[in-house]
């Protein structure tokens, strides 16, 4: 009688274990990832040699792909990279980027030596649509259109410019009229 009970118990245990293992395997195989997002992140490639993860990394890339709830990195409300000229990828620091939202609130952040700037949600969580302008010294550049959804400047401001891409963000439109600031960065 005891032997029959033990056999029954061990059968039940092994069935439970098999069920548990099967459930874990099924869960792992059907995890709720987003293959489109994963592919977009993978397409960005690895870090540039000699540039650690941080405020200077990955200039010109769509920041909020990773810096979002979905991406896992500390989220940004809005972020991007400023270059000096339309035809050059020389970054420019010290550019004040002013974000104004639909309620009239605004927040200003400043580009760093990689040209990167970022607004964190704890600093400012704007309500779309947003309007942006940039200023360094006497040079002011105003964005033509409003931003409705996208937090990454590079999602629309990528190179090369084309029917669906504006080209990178730049400060100096006409070097013969606007004086390019001298960079203090190395």
């Amino acid at each position, binding site marked *: 009688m005891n032997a029959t009970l033990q056999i029954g118990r061990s059968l039940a245990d092994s069935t439970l274990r098999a069920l548990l293992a099967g459930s874990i395997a099924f869960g792992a195989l059907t995890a709720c990832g987003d293959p489109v997002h994963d592919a977009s992140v993978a397409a960005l490639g690895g870090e540039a040699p000699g540039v650690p993860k941080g405020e200077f990394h990955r200039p010109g890339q769509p920041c909020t792909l990773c810096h979002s709830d979905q991406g896992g990195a500390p989220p940004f409300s809005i972020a991007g990279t400023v270059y000096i000229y339309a035809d050059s990828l020389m970054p420019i620091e010290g550019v004040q980027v002013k974000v104004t939202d639909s309620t009239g609130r605004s927040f200003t952040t400043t580009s760093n030596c990689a040209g990167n700037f970022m607004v964190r949600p704890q600093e400012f969580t704007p309500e779309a649509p947003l309007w942006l302008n940039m200023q360094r010294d006497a040079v002011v550049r105003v964005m033509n259109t409003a931003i409705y959804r996208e937090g990454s400047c590079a*999602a*629309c401001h990528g190179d090369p410019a084309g029917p669906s891409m504006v080209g990178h963000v730049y400060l100096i439109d006409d070097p013969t009229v606007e004086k390019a600031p001298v960079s203090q960065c190395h």
Partner: protein
Amino acid sequence: MPLKRARAWFAGVALASLLGCSASVEDQTSQERSLLVAPSRNDFPDVANAMQLRCATLDCHGQAGRNLRLYGYGGLRLSPTENPNGNPTTDPEIAADYTSVVGLEPETLSAVVSHEVDPNQLTLVRKLRGTERHKGGQPAVEGDSLDRCIVLWLTAEHDPNPCAEVINAPTPGNH
């Protein structure tokens, strides 16, 4: 007798399903489809220019993947040699925008233009007013300039003034 009754029943079902399907879009002849009415093409440039500002940026409907795909200055361009910051919106872009808008729900649109149903029957209007989930939020409130610009045009009562109000509205961040 039971066999005859069964045959009659099947014939009845077949006839009913034929009649039931005859109203579907797939079964419409081109002549029947041509009976659908669309909002004015001539008045559309006013509407297109307003939608361009408020709906057609590259991060919204200025994308090739959208059902409601909109072209124009500041957003997606129709010409492969053009870019968003290039020339003003072109006539072919306005024509493409018109095709995009009227092609979304042609039967319902026809009924809206003919005042047979309320404009809210259109997904376009529900999304515009935020009464249906819209990833871009609520671009308009019923009765505001953008809403009147689009809905008056949809209902064949076009008024250029609300469209001009949208186009000329100040942008708070650009000062």
